[in-house]
């Protein structure tokens, strides 16, 4: 199974710089930049290459500025 993780996408026009995403990220992969959150999931992932978090950053964002994408596959699916 290939790594298909794509870092969260940020719509800076929606971001209010509230910082909830920074608080929520269990991997400590996000910092607040001048115009919105900056993600470094690749370096911060506790299990390198696992990308197995549930993107709480997206869930807590009050303005819907953060979007995580994922495929849905069966066990052993390609």
């Amino acid at each position, binding site marked *: 199974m290939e790594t298909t*993780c794509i870092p969260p996408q940020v719509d800076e026009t929606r971001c209010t710089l509230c910082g909830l995403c920074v608080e929520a990220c269990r991997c400590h992969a996000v910092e607040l930049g001048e115009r919105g959150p900056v993600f470094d999931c690749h370096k911060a992932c506790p299990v390198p290459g696992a990308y197995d978090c549930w993107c709480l950053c997206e*869930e807590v964002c009050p303005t819907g500025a953060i979007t995580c*994408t*994922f495929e849905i596959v*069966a066990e052993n699916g390609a």
Partner: protein
Amino acid sequence: MAVNDQTLTRFPLFAALGDDARREIASHFQERTFSPAQAIALEGEQCRVACFVVRGIVRVYRLSHEGREQVLAHLGPGGMFNLVPVLDGGSGMASVDALTEVTLYSIPCDRFRQVVRGHRAVALAVTEYLSAEVRRLSDMVEGLALYTVHARLARFLLSQSDDPQQSSHRWTQAEIAAHIGTVREMVGRTLRDLDAAGLIRRQRGRIVIANREELERQARGE
């Protein structure tokens, strides 16, 4: 732009037509292209054309006054929309936008009605298509009205993992919420609940169905 009459054979409505009839009907179609996120049709507006998807994916949805979406369908090549308003003369039933680069074939309402009246095979295929849509939308109503978010999300995950056309589509929680009639936050919480129960897991940017049998039980509301 004129259309290729052979392409019409991809659509069940025209598959049974002879070459001459299909060529004549093709002369009434126009090809139109749309960019990702471009609006194609708006709910409530007067409908002028029936549309057939040749390339790409469109999203068909209803929007509430509060801005909540309910996705009715994603249509790929071979899909069609606006048939109901074309046939009953009413306004557009749903909004439609392009998810990808999209190529459509469109035919004016009056021409399409002439085609239906003039070709028994097309009329029968339209009836079969609308019957299937009644079944599909009835199932959707059942899911929205009678099942919990847990069950609806389980049904959605199973259907997507079973659909080879969707296997490479990258979903967002907001998109899933619009499909199953809830809000983004609820999708996130429910996904984590299913993960905690061992039914799914997040792995390498994917949601993996880890316990299909139990997920199917959840989907049935058991």
